[in-house]
């Protein structure tokens, strides 16, 4: 199972804008490389990343082969209540991974 690293503060004050950092293990094979014998190395990338907070989408991204291996994506979110961030990566060859992180809002 591929590893993911998520950085979400454990606590925040109501209305805070927090930074979320995500790092997902993936080769991001572009589909533009060739082996020494000339065969195309088939594309194998993550195509979509979604972050939801308590079920509601807060951030989403479409990724292309120009995103570096082991995609690192950081963004922001306003928190108004305690709850759970859920992250989902979807890609070629049936790739589908999830992770989550909880935050307490005071």
């Amino acid at each position, binding site marked *: 199972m*591929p*590893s*993911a*690293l*998520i*950085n979400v503060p454990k606590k925040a004050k109501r209305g805070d804008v927090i930074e979320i*950092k995500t*790092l*997902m*293990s993936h*080769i*991001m094979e572009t589909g533009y490389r060739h082996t020494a014998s000339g065969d195309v190395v088939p594309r194998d990338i993550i195509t979509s990343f979604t972050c939801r907070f308590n079920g509601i989408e807060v951030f989403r991204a479409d990724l292309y082969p120009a995103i*570096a*291996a*082991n995609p*690192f994506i950081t963004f922001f979110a306003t928190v108004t209540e305690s709850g759970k961030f859920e992250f989902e990566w979807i890609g070629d060859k049936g790739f589908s991974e999830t992770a989550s992180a909880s935050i307490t809002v005071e």
Partner: protein
Amino acid sequence: MRIALCIALLTAMAGAALATEISLDQRRSGYSFMSADTKAMQDEDTANPGMLFVLDGEALWKRKAGSADKACADCHSDARVSMKGVAAHYPAFEKTLGKPVDLEGRINLCRSNHQQASPFAYESRELLALTAYVAQQSRGVPIAAGDDPDLAPFVEKGHALFVQRQGQLNLACANCHDDNWDKKLAGSPITQGQPTGYPLYRLEWQALGSLQRRLRACITGIRAQAYDYGSPELVELELYLMTRARGMPVETPAVRP
């Protein structure tokens, strides 16, 4: 054009006499030659892609393997305690073999002897991950390889390889990394070649890689035939480099361009 430039520069270097070893106060990690952006990637664990491999290694540490059905943790329990400082002493002398083994070699010996499992292939994700997890437990610990007197002849062999000219460019490691580390080759700084952060994440590789991989790429770069993975020459070079970096803190998993 790039090759022509390299050859011009390297020919200039080839004229210089070999200098002595870099003194302790002059030793500089490859980190200090990097841009602020690349340093930032290493500085924060959640931004360092090498940490993904460390996480994989942590999972492997606890996973039972082989016909002995034992995990690393079954003998060594908590790596954060048992493996602290260990990587700073590798390559280490292995009495049963009468020669030094590097950390990758030690892990594979453990697999064959104690787990009765097949060794991991060099540069496999598993071997890199487990090595990175073990080495990360020594992060910040000063490198102290080569203390064992049994290692002395092997350190000397590694040193001999380091200063021996070879390949079509007729260059020794020392020509760049002892004599010209404050200069540039094409656009890139020539570093001292201090192996402080292996296995490390190279932006070029877009993956974690071992010191042996780096040495093989260097040797190919001077147009010499690279030694095979696991060969005594590569382990001796690793050993010499680690003694040459004595006192420098372990950075695993480092990030390099």
